[in-house]
């Protein structure tokens, strides 16, 4: 939990440090009128993501669904769902571990083809320990999580974009009659997404 607090501070600090030189205020919006790149308003994707959990030998694999919408010039709101694939959890401590989160992303650029971003999400996990690895069965439980992320999108086509990002899922699972189990995990996602945008012109680059 100390990690979670430090992570919160880190993310807040990075947000502040990043946004300072970007002039992400309404008064600075005039400067981008000449941008010819796509300005994505809404996008969504579905892909697979491996998860790397400390002290867990087998990787876990997730079906990762994501949707985002720009609500400010350099700020988007996004929602993420990670569904653990049943075949991926042999030998894993979790029989089921699905996570749902929402939060903001702050974008380094605006209206450019290459769009790096950083942000965080808060949400819930719905998880259950594997009964074969502990001596008895526990019920599924819902627990809070905090998930900072960093990534980059490349808007190369009118309707599609490519993205790669890393999410760090922070939190603990609190089963009944069992000590808490950390589910902190690094997840890497990459793939193709679909976007709606104000399509006035083609990107400057690519």
């Amino acid at each position: 939990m100390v990690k979670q607090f430090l992570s919160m501070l880190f993310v807040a600090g990075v947000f502040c440090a990043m946004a300072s030189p970007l002039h992400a205020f309404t008064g600075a919006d005039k400067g981008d009128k000449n941008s010819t790149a796509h300005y994505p308003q809404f996008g969504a994707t579905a892909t697979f993501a491996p998860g790397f959990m400390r002290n867990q030998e087998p990787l876990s694999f997730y079906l990762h669904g994501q949707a985002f919408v720009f609500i400010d010039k350099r700020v988007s709101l996004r929602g993420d769902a990670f569904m653990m694939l049943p075949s991926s959890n042999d030998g894993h401590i979790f029989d089921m571990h699905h996570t749902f989160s929402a939060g903001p992303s702050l974008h380094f650029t605006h209206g450019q083809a290459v769009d790096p971003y950083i942000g965080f999400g808060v949400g819930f996990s719905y998880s259950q320990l594997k009964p074969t690895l502990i001596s008895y069965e526990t019920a599924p439980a819902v627990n809070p999580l905090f998930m900072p992320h960093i990534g980059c999108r490349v808007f190369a086509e009118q309707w599609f974009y490519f993205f790669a990002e890393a999410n760090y899922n922070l939190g603990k699972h609190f089963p009944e009659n069992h000590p808490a189990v950390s589910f902190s995990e690094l997840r890497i996602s990459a793939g193709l997404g679909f976007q709606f945008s104000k399509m006035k012109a083609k990107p400057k680059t690519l």
Partner: protein
Amino acid sequence: MKRIVVFIFLLALAAPSFAQQKYGGVFSLGIRTTSSLFTQAGSPGMGVGGQFRLRMLRLVNTEWFADYINTDIDGIGHRTDAHIGWSVMFYLREPEVFTSSPGDAANAPKQITYHRFTPYLLAGHCFDYTWIRSATIPVYTEAKRWSSAVQAGAGVHFHLGARTDLSCSAQYMMHLGDDVHAHVKEVNGVKTLEIEQHQGFSPEGHLLLTLSANFRIADLW
């Protein structure tokens, strides 16, 4: 519960009467994550929640929130706290800057920009639920409590854009109900959890550090 609903309804009805036309009525929705520190559980807790804000005056905003926080008690117990309440936020300086371009008419609408940081003080009240239970079998013990609490602290908005801000706040929350707490005793290397519940008023509190993202979505009046 009826009283709470009636109170909220009356406050919502009364709000326009004391709001200034220029500033009041801005409605924001937000999400938040909260760390709970210095509880008697001994270790920090982590929570998730949501909130909305309704601005009343030039320097006064209100925040209505709900939190769900889980805390690990030394690996042998769990503590769950749920909060639902409100805080009044008093800005130490005005968040907005109104500017006009050279050549604009005197009555032309002014452009609104935001200070990068807006510090504020906040204080309020909430209803809370606390549930402490052991995480071991075969001996299972638990204690639950509904109570009321007051909280006060300080925070800062960081304006990311015209509609978005990131807020960090620190509040000390003091519970005003029965006392529920847990002790961890270690004898010969074996830890045991002792849960105690005492009737009667007993102030007990914890520090809440909150990081939230808020999105201005409407100007209600």
